[in-house]
């Protein structure tokens, strides 16, 4: 069964450093998303991406965050200058149609120290 692949599975970074979280969505999917889950809290929407542009972003997704689909297969989330409160599990998801549920990746656990 096709999967959404995320790398790395765990990343530890110093506060103020830039991180790039990588995702390979399912190949025929058209809609891409990033969500995050702070330990013990709800899964939160960050951003949706369709037709090579952002469809919507949440209040969390400020100027420190950006997304890119550089080559038609990867979908990346960049955090420019990480803060302690960015520590969370980051999930990538994709779907070929909004009439169907998304497929989530296994997540990247980001720890900012």
């Amino acid at each position: 069964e096709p999967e959404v692949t995320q790398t790395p599975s765990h990343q530890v970074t110093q506060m103020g450093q830039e991180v790039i979280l990588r995702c390979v969505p399912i190949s025929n999917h058209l809609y891409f998303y990033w969500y995050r889950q702070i330990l013990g809290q709800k899964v939160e929407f960050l951003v949706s991406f369709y037709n090579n542009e952002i469809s919507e972003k949440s209040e969390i997704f400020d100027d420190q965050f950006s997304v890119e689909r550089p080559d038609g297969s990867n979908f990346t989330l960049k955090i420019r200058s990480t803060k302690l409160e960015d520590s969370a599990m980051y999930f990538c998801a994709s779907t070929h149609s909004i009439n169907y549920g998304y497929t989530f990746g296994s997540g990247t656990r980001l720890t900012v120290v």
Partner: protein
Amino acid sequence: EDKVVQSPLSLVVHEGDTVTLNCSYEVTNFRSLLWYKQEKKAPTFLFMLTSSGIEKKSGRLSSILDKKELFSILNITATQTGDSAIYLCAVGLIQGAQKLVFGQGTRLTINP
């Protein structure tokens, strides 16, 4: 503010029991309601509901949506230890390419 509330937050039952998980919501621009199972990391898709009163079924799992009363239930019959997981309810909104608003999840534990 869009809100999704699940109950109970935690449930412990014996293998073979039937369980009902609840999800209520208050959102603008409702499009769909989705159920996911989260075992270790990735939420796994179970059901997507868009119409009231139509039950969706997959094996021992079933779910139904009530758009008038703004809730959904997920039923699991003849539970097995492999059903132990966090069950997430999410509402898909019309905007944002169906961005999802999640509830806090129900942690279900099935004891042998």
